């Protein structure tokens, strides 16, 4: 009997470890944007274009959390930055320069618990390239980033 109680208690303890993890969520909405730099004045460099077609949505059920961002982009040639605007909850970190293989850095901090609703923000991606950097055709292809957003305890 003591053995059974011990087993049950140990199993309860283990089941308590990922408490609520499956109920927290973070999703990227708006698809996979393509930012095409089609030109500008030769007097002003670099060529710059922003996209705000995507949103980040999350739900936080426990203590204060934060969202980090990272990217993988093999053979990256051009510059891409991301910034959170119109945040429903939390504080936006400064604009992040996305670099291939970077460590995750803070994107939104001080997200408080609210089990009753989802929060979201708009993702403002800004791509830029100088004329000297060349074009996708000569360089073997576009820059394709896999950008990952992670919700974790702060």
């Amino acid at each position, binding site marked *: 009997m003591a053995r059974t109680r011990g087993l049950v208690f140990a199993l309860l303890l*283990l089941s308590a470890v990922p408490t609520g993890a499956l109920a*927290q969520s*973070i999703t990227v909405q708006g698809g996979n944007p393509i930012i095409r730099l089609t030109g500008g004045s030769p007097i002003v460099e670099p060529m710059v274009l922003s996209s705000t077609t995507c949103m980040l949505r*999350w739900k936080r059920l426990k203590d204060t959390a934060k969202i980090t961002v990272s990217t993988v982009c093999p053979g990256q040639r*051009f510059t*891409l930055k991301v910034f959170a605007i119109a945040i429903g909850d939390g504080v936006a970190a400064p604009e992040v320069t*996305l670099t291939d293989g970077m460590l995750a850095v803070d994107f939104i901090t001080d997200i408080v618990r609210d089990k009753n609703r989802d929060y979201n923000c708009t993702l403002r991606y800004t791509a830029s390239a100088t*004329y*000297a950097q060349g074009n996708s055709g000569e360089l073997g292809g576009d820059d394709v980033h896999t950008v*990952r957003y992670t919700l974790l305890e702060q």
Partner: protein
Amino acid sequence: MPLHLETCSDGTYINAVRAFNDSLFTFPFRMTLVRRAWLVALIVLSARIAVAQVLASGSHTVTVQVPQVTALQIMTRTLTMTVSAINTQAGQDEMTVTDRTTQLVWGINSSGKKITASTSVATPLFKLKLVALNPTRGTPAPEMTVNTTPSDLLLNVGRSTGSCILSYTGIALASQGAGTDAHVITFTVLNQ
């Protein structure tokens, strides 16, 4: 104080052995199923405390696409050159006037390019010559007589931004009389 584990010969006991001041303390530790479960639970809990827990993650792809881009800009849009008495010398048939007030600016993000110039006037009354001066990038071609066929103005301007001064020289002969040529000069980026 060093601590090491010893397994007894039949595998049913693990002794945790500690040495302290040359004396040896041993205590039996039976790894039953219950205790194994406790041990796993404690290990997992300690790992959870040591690292901030990842709650959820999501991703998408973002593509940056840069096609071939060519941008040219002329800083003075309309230029009037007049051969006047200032430009003439008695007894000399050829009269010239030069203007260097126009700047050409470019941005080209592909390799192996040149800039050419041509005019809309197929049979001009007077001769118009053109050469690029002081280019910040590239190599100026020799002075050209502008005609309807694109002629080299600047070479080796690929993957760059830059500027140059456009030096126009109008040449009229006194024997040709008076008249006006209205040129539309077109600058084109071509493969070198």
